[in-house]
C-alpha cells in the first residue's frame, strides 16, 4: 500500500499549489503596511473601507455587472437552442456545427481581441460596452452550449412526446415540460457565462474604449504601488463572490 500514500501526499501538495496564490490576496488585503511581504505589519479593514470612495471603481463595477448580465442572457438563450438541436436532432453538418461553436475556446485571446477590434471599427462600431458584450458573448457561448448539452442529455424525450400526445402545443410543452427539467442547466449556464464575462480581461482591454470594465480598471491600478492594497481588497471581494457563485450553482461537468 505504499503507492497510494505517495500519490495522496502528492494530491494534497498539488492542492496547496492551486490554493496558495489565491489565498495570499485576501491575507495581504488585511495588512496595514503597503508592501506585500512578510512579516505582516498589522491588521486593518481600511483598504476595504476606502473602496466605496472611488468613483471610477464603482463605475467600472457597474459596467462589468451590466455587461455580464447581458452576456449571460444572450449566450444562454443561443446556447439553449443550439444545445437542444445538437442533443435532440440529427442533421447533416451537425458535428461541424458543434465544433464551430466550441472554436472560441481554442483561439488565442489576443487574436480574438485584435481581430474583433478591427472588425467592429470596420463596421462603424466604436469601442464601448456594446462591443465588449458582443465579444464576450462569443467567448461565453461554448460554455453555455456544453453545459446545456449535458442538461439535455439527462432529459427523456418521451416526456415531450407524451405531452404532444396529450394534445399540448409546442410552446406550452416547452414551457411546462422541457423548461422545468433543464432549468438547473439554465441556471448553471447563466452563472458560468456571467463569470466568464465578469472576469475576462484581454478582450475588454481592446474593446472597451473609455468605458472600462472591472478587470480593465484593475489592470490600470496594478502598476501603481500606492494603489496596491486597494486592489488587493477589491480582488479579495471578487474572489469571494466568484467562489460563492461557483459553489451554489448546479453542476454539469463544466
Amino acid at each position, binding site marked *: 500500500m505504499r*503507492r497510494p500514500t505517495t500519490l495522496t501526499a502528492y494530491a494534497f501538495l498539488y492542492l496547496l499549489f492551486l490554493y496558495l496564490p489565491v489565498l495570499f490576496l485576501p491575507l495581504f488585503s488585511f495588512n496595514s503596511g503597503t508592501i506585500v511581504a512578510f512579516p505582516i505589519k498589522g491588521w486593518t479593514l481600511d483598504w476595504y473601507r476606502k473602496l466605496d470612495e472611488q468613483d471610477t471603481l464603482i463605475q467600472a463595477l457597474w459596467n462589468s455587472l451590466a455587461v455580464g448580465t447581458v452576456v449571460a442572457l444572450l449566450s444562454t438563450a443561443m446556447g439553449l437552442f443550439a444545445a437542444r438541436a445538437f442533443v435532440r*436532432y440529427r442533421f447533416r453538418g451537425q458535428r461541424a*456545427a458543434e465544433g464551430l*461553436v466550441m472554436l472560441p475556446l481554442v*483561439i488565442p485571446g489576443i487574436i480574438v481581441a485584435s*481581430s474583433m477590434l478591427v472588425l467592429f471599427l470596420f463596421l462603424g462600431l466604436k469601442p464601448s460596452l456594446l462591443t465588449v458584450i*458582443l465579444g464576450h458573448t462569443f467567448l461565453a457561448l461554448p460554455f453555455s452550449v456544453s453545459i446545456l448539452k449535458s442538461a439535455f442529455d439527462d432529459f427523456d424525450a418521451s416526456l415531450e412526446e407524451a405531452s404532444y400526445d396529450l394534445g399540448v402545443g409546442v410552446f406550452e410543452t416547452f414551457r411546462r415540460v422541457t423548461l422545468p427539467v433543464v432549468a438547473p442547466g439554465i441556471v448553471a449556464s447563466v452563472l458560468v457565462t456571467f463569470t466568464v464575462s465578469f472576469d475576462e480581461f484581454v478582450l475588454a482591454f481592446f474593446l472597451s474604449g473609455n468605458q472600462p470594465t472591472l478587470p480593465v480598471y484593475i489592470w490600470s491600478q496594478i502598476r501603481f504601488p500606492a494603489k496596491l492594497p486597494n486592489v488587493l481588497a477589491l480582488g479579495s471581494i471578487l474572489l469571494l463572490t466568484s467562489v460563492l457563485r461557483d459553489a451554489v450553482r448546479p453542476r454539469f461537468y463544466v
Partner: protein
Amino acid sequence: MIFRSEASRGYTLSAPATAYVGFLVAAPLVILIAYSFWTQTYVTLDKTPTLKNYSDAFADPLVRHLMLRSIWIAGAVTIVTVALAYPIAYFIAMKAQKKTIWLLLITIPFWSSYLLRVFAWKLILGFNGVMNSALLALGLINEPLDFLLYNEFAVVLTLAHAWAPFAILPIYVSLQKIDPSLLEAATDLGNSPIQRFMRVTLPLTIPGIIAACLIIFIPTVGDYVTPALVGGSDGKMIANLIQVQFGAANNWPLGATLSLIAMLSVGFVAIVFVMSATRLGRRIR
C-alpha cells in the same frame, strides 16, 4: 409542429449560435487579411496591396525571436502542466474515495479572475515579495532571490498554475473510460503495476492527453497577461508585441500581419503535434 423534418428543426435551432460564432470567426479573419496587405503611416491608411508587412515581419529578428519564444514557452507550459496534472487525474479517477469533492476542489480556484491569479503570482515571486520575505524570515536565505520573477520561469510557473484544470479534466475523463477488466487482464497476464500502466493505462489515455495539450498550448501562445505581468523583458511574448501595434505603435496593418502569422504558426505546430501524437499512440498499442 412547426417544422416537418427533424433536420430542419436542428438547423433552425442551432442557427443563431453557429451563425454568430461563424460570423465572428470569419468576418474578422477576412478584414485582418485585408489589413495585412495595407500599410499605415501615423493615421493615414494606404490601401494599396503590398507584401511589405510580411517582409518586415519576417526580416525583423525581434518578431522571429518573440514568435519562437512564445511557441517554446507554450510548449514548456504544456509539458509541465500535463506532467503535474496527470498524477492528480490518476489519483482522482482511480484512488480517490470522493471524486466529486476532489473535482470541485480543483476547479473552484479557477472561477476567480485570471488577472488576479497572475497578479498573485507577481506578488509571491517579487524581489521584495511573499516568497523572498518568507524565506528570509525563516532564515533559509540571506538575501532575496532575484531569479524568481521577470523571466521565463515565472511565466511557465504561473501558466502551469492557471491551466491546471484544463489538463486534469480531459485526462480524468479518459481515465474514467478505461474498462477495469482490461487492467485485471493485464495483471492476470503477469504485468507488474508499472508495466500495466505503460502498456494499458497510458496508451488508453492518449486522447485525453492530446486534448489537454491542445487546449493549453493554443491559447498560451497568444497569452498577454502573464508575460506582461511576470515576464519582464526576458519573458515577453508575441501577444505583447501585437498589443503594442494596436496600441502605442498604432500600426494596425503590422499588428494584423503578426496576428495572422501567430495564428498560422500555432495551427501548424498543433497539426504536427496531433499527427505525431496519434502515430505514437498507435505504435504503443
